């Protein structure tokens, strides 16, 4: 008897649960709210929540309000797989995120098996979309594209001896390998190729070894916390060699760590930030963002998360469905040149964003990131 009652209770609860779920359309956001990339996660949350509010003010999607459910992935693959499992049980229509490639990789299969569309925003490692997962998309470009731009930038400087430094992460190693491959094919002289350990504070041993290889330029493909320390300690050593970075450098915290003087002149590749885009959509969004948070979006990845959110909402709106198969079908076949805040968005069959996105940025003396023409 007790069992029967329990069963009835469970049935009743699940019935009310689904009834409530039908009132809103839930969209998940998986982001590094803690850990060393916490500032990226906060930005992602700001963008997605602002867009959800705007959409709800316009009456939501198909007559339903949007509810954003945030899960913290801690910038760590293990935490992320737990976050993905939790999100998968919450009846979400799609998930936005996350930032790091290795972190995304830990969650891809979980979402795919649960038939949930995932739109990553900062995960640029090539192999993420080479696996043939049906429901995986990303609004950021891929590292092979970045590799090409990177190799061109190195060639433009006229560097003869090139050093490549990565941090062994899926993204960083992948990008370093891409650049290395392109440079080798051009018979360029790569004099140094090795990895540092992220989250350390003293990189003087590595810088000394780099210096001994006497490169004309050092390309560091890791993230901004380490890049900031490298620049700072390079300056302390009194070593003047140009450093170039990949798109994971694009965060104003870089200047905070390195100091303005040490960061000045540093160049990196990145998709353009909204402030550098002149489309009417981007301008309107900048104004709305400024009104809500009192400043421009600091990081491009938060904006890319916002773009991911917008294409998902668009797909739900157009197909009048929250089924993963319908969303996927729409994104791959029907979405063409969607006016995103980071430029036009279309996806290919693999789920990759189509089109050239990368620009070269330079840190000026005041610590601002200036797009190079």
């Amino acid at each position: 008897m007790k069992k029967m009652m329990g069963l009835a209770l469970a049935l009743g609860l699940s019935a009310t649960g689904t009834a409530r779920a039908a009132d809103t359309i839930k969209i998940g956001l998986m982001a590094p709210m803690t850990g060393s990339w916490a500032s990226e996660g906060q930005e992602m949350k700001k963008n997605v929540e602002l867009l959800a509010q705007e959409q709800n003010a316009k009456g939501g999607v198909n007559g339903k309000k949007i509810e954003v459910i945030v899960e913290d992935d801690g910038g760590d693959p293990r935490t992320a797989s737990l976050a993905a499992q939790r999100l998968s049980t919450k009846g979400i229509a799609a998930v936005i995120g996350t930032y790091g490639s290795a972190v995304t990789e830990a969650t891809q299969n979980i979402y795919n098996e649960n038939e949930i569309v995932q739109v990553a925003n900062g995960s640029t490692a090539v192999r993420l979309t080479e696996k043939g997962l049906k429901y995986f998309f990303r609004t950021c470009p891929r590292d092979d594209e970045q590799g090409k731009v990177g190799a061109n930038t190195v060639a433009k400087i006229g560097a003869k001896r090139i050093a490549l430094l990565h941090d062994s992460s899926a993204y960083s190693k992948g990008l370093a390998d891409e650049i290395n491959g392109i440079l080798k094919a051009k018979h360029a002289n790569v004099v140094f190729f090795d990895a540092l350990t992220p989250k350390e504070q003293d990189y003087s041993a590595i810088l000394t070894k780099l210096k001994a290889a006497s490169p004309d330029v050092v390309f560091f493909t890791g993230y901004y916390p380490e890049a900031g320390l490298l620049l700072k300690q390079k300056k302390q050593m009194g070593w003047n060699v140009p450093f170039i970075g990949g798109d994971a450098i694009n965060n104003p915290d870089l200047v905070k760590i390195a100091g303005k003087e040490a960061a000045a002149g540093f160049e990196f590749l990145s998709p353009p930030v909204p402030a550098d885009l002149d489309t009417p959509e981007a301008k309107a969004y900048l104004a709305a963002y400024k009104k809500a948070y009192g400043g421009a979006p600091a990081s491009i990845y938060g904006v890319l998360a916002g773009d991911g959110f917008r294409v998902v909402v668009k797909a739900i709106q157009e197909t009048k469905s929250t089924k993963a198969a319908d969303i996927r079908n729409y994104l791959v076949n029907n979405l063409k040149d969607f006016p995103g805040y980071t430029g036009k968005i279309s996806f290919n069959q693999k789920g990759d964003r189509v089109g050239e996105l990368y620009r070269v940025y330079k840190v000026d003396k005041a610590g601002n990131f200036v797009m190079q023409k």
Partner: protein
Amino acid sequence: MEQFFQQLTNGLAVGGIYALIALGYTMVYGVLKLINFAHGDLFTYGGYLGLTLLTSFLLQDRMGVMAGIGILTVMVMGLVGVMGVVLERAAYRPLREAPRLSAVVSALGASIFLQNALMLIYGAQFQTYPEGLLPQTAVSLGGIQIPLIRILVVLASIVMMAALYLFVQKTKIGTAVRAAAIDQGAARLMGIDVNKVVSLVFLIGPALGGSAGLLVGLYYGRVDFTMGWVYGMKAFTAAILGGIGNIPGAMVGGLLLGVIEALGAAYLSIAWKDAFAFCVLILILIVRPTGLLGERVAEKV
């Protein structure tokens, strides 16, 4: 050759910090036979408290840089020292008579508590020290570049270690500490207040660890709430390397570990830098379990 000497100085600077933290591990172990796993987190508090005091009182603007940093060091050491004493009262003293495992679990719990408290107070993002606090110049010495700050870090750590060594070896209270380390029961019979000695050890060890945290903040400019883990592990390794329970051993172990890491990174592979430290640890445990200088173990019959 030039690279060798440059790496040697790199290693000594990091090693100086390891050594300062290692002293806390080794002193607590010497007296209580307890590994204070929360020590790494007290080190982190040093970095954060330094930043808070520096920015809230604008020390660097009110007085000269050097005087400001001097006062800052004293304040941070005092505060972290008090934290250490409170930690011992709350987490370790009630378990003094309990099996040793209970104290180890309590230490791990304290570590998690301290780390999370820091995250809740300051947020999960790393914090940065104000820019240009110390002069960013480097001294050129026969081809090797030594940043001025690094000389300062090494000097500060050597001065503090020497002061501690003299204190323990030459003063009456130091003798009491050594006596308690050998045999607490006998020390008590000789009229030594063992609880006071333990409190003192928990004042000095964390104070030195806190000063290391402040040095890290001043030197590297970036502190994050999880940094105590890696530094703690390295310092713990350094303490074992030198012989845990042995104060000069902790100094030697710390400096040596820093140098091993730097040279390993230079001549083998930089990606495996951390592995060298722990390979050395394993090697030492196999070949000479008491550490390089050995621990003076009292024979209990």
